[in-house]
Every structure is written in C-alpha cells, then in structure tokens.
C-alpha cells in the first residue's frame, strides 16, 4: 500500500527507478522525501508498512535501488539503504492495535529467515495465526548464521523480529523440520497451510584434489560458528576461495580472529565479483589480499594438512552465451600458501525434511519446484519460497518471496484474488536527459561514519556507525523525487505555455499534436510551474508537497498564539535547515512571536498563501529563502524576488504597511542571521 498516496502519471504510469528496482517494492523515494522534511516517524512507518526487517535490511541489502538511482547521472546515488537503517535504528512503531485474527486457519512457517519472517508478518497482518518453526535457538536464519556481526549486529535482527512477534506471530525455536516436526505432525496439529522457507544451509564444495585435507573448511559453517561462539579454529594463513558476499564475509571474519594473513582467491576479475564494491573495498581496506582471476586446481597438503592452493589463470568466467563456464590457461599454475582454506563458492540445500515425501518436486540443483504465481508445491497446502526455491537470492528477494507467498496462501484459503498493486510491473522513469544533467545542482553524498580500521579488527563490533540526524536529512535532501514531481491535468491545461517558458530545468513541453503541456520524469519538483500556472492545471503527484498549506494551518492551530502580538509567520526553506542541533534552539528562541513554516524549496509557495497567513491572524510574514549559491534548485531566488514584489503590491492595494511583509535571502535557516532578522521584525511590528 502506498501510504503517501502518490498519484501516478496518467500518461506514462512511470515509477521511481529505486522503487521498481526493489524486490519488495519498498517506497524508497517517499520515505526519503519524508526524512528530507524531518518527518521521521512517518518515514519509519512507511518503511515498515512494506518491509518487515527494516533495521537488518538497511545494513546488508545489496540495494539495487541505489544502482538504479538517477543521482548516478549527476554524481553518486542517494544512500538509500543507510537512510533506511537510520530510521530502523532511531525510530520504532508502537503497535497500539494487534491485528485481529479474522480467520480460523493457522499457518505453519518453516524457518525464521527473511522469507519466513516476511510471510509470517504479512499473514499476521492479513488476519491469520502464524507459528514459525526454527531449528536454531534464535531468529534470522542466514542473517544470523551467515552475516557477521560487524555488518549486522544482532540487536538489529532482534528489534525487527520483536515487532513481528508483537503482531501475534509465535516462534518455536530448536525445532527442526523433518525430525521434531513433519508434514504429518503439522497437519495433525491443525495447520491449514505450510510455508517452507528453510533457506540453503549447506556450503557447496569443490571437486578437486585435496578438499578432504585438514584445514579445509566450508564457509557457512565457519561463519555460523564465529557468529554464535565468537571464535573458530583457524591457522595463521587463511585463504578464502570465492568472490561473492559470503567470501567477503568469511575473509573479514577471519581477519578478526587475528591470523597473520587473509587472502581471497576469486575466479572473477575484481569488476566481475558478485558482491558490492563497498564490501570489496572494506575488505581490502581492512587488510584482505585479493587474488583475482584465478581458479582452484588442487589443494596442496603435507602430513594430511593443507599447505596451499594451486591455481590456474582464468581465461574467462562466462562463455559467449553468458553462462558460467570458466576456462583456464594451460600451464599457468601458481601456488598461494595457506594453512586454512575456506570454501565460499555457494550454498546448497539440505532436503532431509523431504524424506518419505515424494510429491514435492526437486530441481537438479536441489531447489524446490513451486508454481511461480501461487508458490504452491505439488503437495496440497504446502508452499515454499526464499532461497530454497530461488537457489541463491538476496535478503530482499527472500522477503519478496515470503510476501508474495503470504498473499497467495490467503487467496488460496479464502478463494479470493486479492492483489497487491505494488507487484505490477511499472516502467521506471527513464534516465535524465543528458542536456539536463548540467542544470541539476550536484550534491555531495554524505559519508558513512565508520570505526577506525585499527579498532575494528580487535572485535566483531559494527563497523558502520550510522547516520546522524543532520547527515540523514542532508542526504535525503539530495533525492530528486523521481516520478513524483509536477504533472499536468489535461482537462485543466489551457496550453498557455507558461510552464514551458519558465521551467529552469526545461522539462515541460507541448508534444507535437498535443494541445496541453507534458512534464516528464526529469521534473525536479521545484514547484515554480505549479505556482505560476494560471489555470491551476499543474500539481504535484505526491501529497507530501503541500506547498506550505497544511503546515501553515498546523502552525496556527495553537490557541495560545491567538493572543500573541505581534505574531509572525516565517516561511523558510527546509533545504537550508537540515542542521538538527540548531533548528530546535532557533525555534525555541523564536517561539513566542514567530511560527515557522518549512517548505522544501520556497518556489513552491504561492503568494496567495502569504495573504492567507495574514487572514489567519499573522501580523507579519517573513520569508527567509536560501541564497542562490546555496539553493538546491536554480533560479529560485529570481522567482522569489518577483513574487515578493507582486505580494507587496497586493498588500499595498489593501493599504497594509510594507513592514509587515519581508523577504530575506540568507545563508542558513538556523543561524544567528535568522534570529536578528526576526527580532528586528518583531520590534518593527511593535511600532506600527
């Protein structure tokens, strides 16, 4: 559900690329826009309404949203995942009303990993009683077993899971499917549907000479051991074989066990490695040595112990059909010394729970076969999703499977066809026109504060420390609000061309054969056209852009201020007011005589709203805009100056004193400057 109610473009039905790219269709743009306006609690609720594991997801998601972010065209993408983590770490939602169990059917969910937790979360919200059966003693599945704590502290998982439990979901730990419980026992217990989300618990192994030697261990059990006990038996010279996220996790985890050296041997070149650049960079930064484009030939050993890996140089990893089919150069052997070799070349399924159950089909690679729409296996009432179906997926892909399966289970049990419109395949807003890139102001990405590399290798504490409020707001304000900007109502547009002529980003156009204007996805949401359109045919697609109207009403609702004299309404630009430390101080200092109405860009404010402020009881209106050099948009100052003049004329027509309406262009909306201006104005108004 899109709780911000953003309208879609009737002509194109385009969606923000970050939302389209996300496996669970997280409303990234909208929660970022809420953060940009300091509406953190609503932002958190929006995230949580779609994502059952926001704290964990904000840390380890591979964020395809950022890969598709259109800020890539101007400099670097928005730190979407880090912003979600900021919300998960600092905000929570009190559940005042646990969903009523509307339906009698009980659902059994096998595995408390991303898929199982997502399925349970959504089924509980739909009104079902859910029990999760988990073989471990703690929740999270591979998040807990596989992901190191320095990337994902366990409290992040626990916080997320606690919320799911508050929805009424029961989790039974230390309960293994296939031994402690079976298909039959669950049926006897009265469960109407079973969702299998057990994940891939086994590590793949290599079919080469020497894998049986002492010192050769598998990646996932190694991570599991360290993640649960804080230690593992390794030698002084560790080599990880693999190039993906698990390989990076193994290498960085091994580093923290203080061997002399940790290396990684990867088939892929550095560019081809199937993990995020950030993970590779952090591993190298911490001291991991990378051997790229080498393939394992055999593990060398002495006295039954591994001593190194003989490698071959890789000719190519993927063949012409882009299939994984590595080829090597003959005679290119070389040796990487190691006394511990960790195999992190992929995971495999453990299907022992299927014993005696032949109806559920299994693929050659050991995954379960399900109907891709209904998630149903061939066994009636049994569903499956997550890695056990995908083979290899990300956390969000697992959650997406769980969410889709939950809806499918509901539809099957109720014989309904309830749909989640978010899964509709919408077209992403296309890339920014190259000619427009230069018109968009570059905004530096906020750095993630991290623990110093000297400190981090002594422990398993989290390396990334999280955004401060200031950094989060500043980062969120870089968002270009793709697909939620201005749009033209064809029924109202009179084709006056005002928008076409005034847009500083040259976005509106009247296409050949059309008589009304069209605003494409390159709109930057500056709002100039929305205000200047004489026919009021242009509005924002997102209701978040209230243009100051709702905020003004809210600011004047306090009965206390009705007696205050003089009362000033200060319309200020939120782009210039990201600094948390100062905003409260300023607001407190000004509180008695000044009410502040923040708008993300004052180009969105209609002059008639300034008149409205007077009508609602203000004795003065103070507009504080950002100076051109600090303005998020371009040409705002020029337009704010024009409107100031125009508003002054309207007020002069009413015989109002010119001192009642002032506009100032200032460097910061939270500095001493605003205090001086406001106090001066208070004094002036006292003298009128």
């Amino acid at each position, binding site marked *: 559900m899109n709780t911000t109610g953003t309208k879609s473009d009737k002509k194109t039905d385009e969606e923000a690329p970050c939302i389209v790219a996300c496996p669970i269709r997280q409303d990234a743009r909208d929660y970022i826009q809420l953060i940009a306006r300091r509406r953190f609690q609503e932002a958190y609720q929006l995230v949580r309404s779609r994502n059952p594991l926001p704290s964990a997801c904000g840390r380890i998601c591979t964020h395809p949203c950022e890969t598709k972010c259109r800020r890539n065209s101007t400099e670097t993408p928005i730190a979407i995942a880090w912003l979600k983590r900021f919300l998960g770490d600092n905000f929570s939602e009190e559940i005042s009303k646990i969903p009523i169990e509307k339906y009698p059917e009980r659902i059994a969910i096998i595995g408390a990993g991303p898929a199982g937790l997502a399925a349970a979360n959504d089924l509980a919200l739909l009104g079902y009683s859910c029990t999760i059966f988990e073989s471990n003693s703690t929740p999270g599945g591979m998040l807990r077993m596989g992901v190191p704590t320095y990337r994902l502290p366990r409290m992040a998982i626990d916080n997320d899971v606690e919320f799911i439990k508050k929805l009424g979901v029961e989790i039974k730990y230390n309960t293994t499917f296939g031994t402690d419980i079976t298909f039959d026992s669950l049926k006897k217990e009265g469960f109407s549907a079973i969702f299998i989300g057990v994940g891939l618990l086994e590590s793949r192994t290599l079919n080469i000479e020497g894998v049986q030697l002492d010192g050769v261990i598998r990646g996932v059990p190694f991570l599991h051991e360290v993640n649960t006990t804080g230690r593992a038996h390794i030698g002084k010279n560790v080599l990880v074989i693999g190039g993906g996220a698990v390989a990076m996790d193994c290498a960085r985890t091994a580093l923290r066990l203080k061997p002399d050296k940790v290396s990684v041997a990867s088939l892929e070149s550095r560019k081809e490695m199937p993990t995020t650049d950030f993970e590779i960079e952090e591993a190298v930064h911490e001291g991991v040595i990378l051997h790229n484009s080498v393939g394992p030939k055999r593990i060398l050993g002495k006295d039954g112990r591994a001593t190194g890996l003989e490698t071959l140089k890789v000719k190519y990893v993927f063949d012409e059909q882009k299939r994984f089919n590595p080829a090597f150069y003959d005679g290119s052997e070389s040796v990487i010394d190691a006394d511990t070799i960790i195999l992190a070349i992929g995971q495999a399924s453990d299907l022992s729970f299927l014993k005696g159950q032949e109806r559920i089909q299994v693929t050659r690679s050991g995954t379960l076969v399900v109907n891709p729409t209904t998630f149903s296996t061939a066994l009636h009432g049994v569903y499956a999703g997550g890695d056990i179906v995908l083979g290899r997926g990300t956390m969000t892909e697992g959650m997406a499977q769980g969410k889709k399966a939950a809806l499918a289970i509901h539809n099957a049990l109720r014989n309904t066809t309830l749909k989640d419109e978010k899964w509709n395949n919408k077209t992403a807003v296309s890339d920014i026109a190259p000619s427009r890139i230069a018109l968009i102001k570059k905004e530096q990405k906020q750095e993630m504060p991290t623990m110093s590399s000297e400190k981090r290798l002594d422990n398993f504490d989290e390396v990334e420390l999280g955004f401060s409020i200031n950094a989060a707001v500043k980062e969120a304000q870089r968002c270009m609000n793709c697909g939620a900007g201005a749009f033209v109502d064809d029924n*109202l547009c*009179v*084709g*006056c*061309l*005002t928008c076409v*002529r*005034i847009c500083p980003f040259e976005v509106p156009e009247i296409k050949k054969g059309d008589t009304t204007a069209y605003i494409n996805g390159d709109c930057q949401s500056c709002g100039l056209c929305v*205000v*200047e*359109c*004489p*026919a*009021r045919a242009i509005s924002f697609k997102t209701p978040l852009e209230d243009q100051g109207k709702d905020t003004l009403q809210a600011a004047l609702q306090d009965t206390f201020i009705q007696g205050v004299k003089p009362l000033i309404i200060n319309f200020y630009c939120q782009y210039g007011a990201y600094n948390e430390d100062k905003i409260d101080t300023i607001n407190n200092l000004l509180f008695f005589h000044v009410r502040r109405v923040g708008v993300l860009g004052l180009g969105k404010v*209609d*002059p*008639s709203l300034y*008149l*409205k402020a*007077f*009508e609602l009881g203000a004795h003065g209106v103070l507009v504080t805009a950002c100076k051109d050099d600090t303005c998020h948009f371009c040409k705002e100052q020029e337009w704010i100056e024009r409107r100031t003049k125009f508003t002054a004329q*309207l007020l002069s*027509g*009413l*015989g*109002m004193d010119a001192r009642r309406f002032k506009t100032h262009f200032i460097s910061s909306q939270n500095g001493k400057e605003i205090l001086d201006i406001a106090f001066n104005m208070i004094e002036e108004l006292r003298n009128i």
Partner: protein
Amino acid sequence: MIVAASKPFQEIKQMLSEFRKICVLGCGSCVTICHTGGEKQVAELAAQLRLSAKLEGRQIEVKEDSTLRQCEWEFIDNIREVIEDCDAVLSIACGVGVQYMAEKFPKIRIFPGVNTTFMGGPTEQGIFWERCAGCGNCILATTGGLCPVSRCAKSLMNGPCGGSQNGRCEVSQETPCVWNQIYDQLDTQQLLKTMETIVPPKDWTTGAENHPRKMVLEHLVVKKQIN
C-alpha cells in the same frame, strides 16, 4: 486572444463594498492565458478580498470558482448553484463574459474584475501586445502580415507618418513603427511595389463604427432557444 488587465484593487473593493457573499469567478480561456482571469488570479483576488474585510472588521464570505468560458450559456449554467447563492459576482472574464453572466443571472449583481483591453498575444513570457482591432475588413494580405489598423497609433493605411523615427513610433518610443516593419517585410519578400498602390479611405462601417455587429452562420442555425 482577448487580453485583459486587472482592475486596481481599490476599485474592485469599492464596487463590492456593500456585498457580504461574493463569488470571484474566473474564465478558463483568453484571460487565463494572459494571467489576469484564471484560477490562480481567482485565488489571489479572493485572498485579497478576505484580508481586506478582515482588516476593516467586516464579515464577508468569498467563494472561488471558474468556468471554461463565461461566454457560453451552457458553461455558465453549470455554475448556477454557486452564483445564485451569492449577492454579487466578481467576474474576471473579458467584457463578453461579464455580460453573459449579467444576462444569465439578472437578479445577481455582476461586476467586472478586469479591464478588457485588446486582441493580441504574448510576444514573450509576461508581455502582451495588441495585434488586431477587429476592423471587419482584413488587409493583412497586402501589408506583409502586419496590421496597421491595430499597430499604427493613427491606423494609417498608406505608409508611415512623419513621426516615424528610427523605426519607432513618435507616440511611444517602446512601440515599433509598424509601417517601418511593413516596409522591411515587403522588401524581404520583394513586394515593395505593392506599397505604390494607393489604398482608398478605409470603410470603417465593418468595424467599430457599426456596433453591435452580428454574424450568422445560416448552415448552423438551429431553431432552439438556448438562453
């Protein structure tokens, strides 16, 4: 299109001073395009009226509405309920719209909020120039597509007067001398010879001399009273 200019607010206020329930009514065509009679201007005028009353301690109710064209009976009939609920209407349509409103709602006082000024268009964003005087006998074919009737201060028919100075009109330095422009245009088109033909005195009876004018399209007339 018809271009209209906003009336001074003091004049509007004066006109409406005795009314308590007022509708500011915009028109969604020409005056919207020239930024004096669209929905945006409706909101601005309404805000001004409300604030003005508040400052003077008067109680008034100001409604805001707009219709596609105030010069069509059917369109203004659509807003009948709103109009008949008011004591007065401030129409910010051109004079045509104001009259249609007055004719349609004889019991309601209808006031003009704009001064209908000329027929013209925007030459650049926010700047409008007169281009046609509605003379009823178009001569643009012989003047290179530039109208001396509306664009010459004296509506001369046979070239510029002695006041044409460096391509500018003596009445206003801002105004280009249209006969200078006509000369340049005809020169470009190698049609300067046409200027040698003397144009006899213009028959003004097709234009403003003959108010009110009427046009009948016989093939479209249906015998149905739509007013």
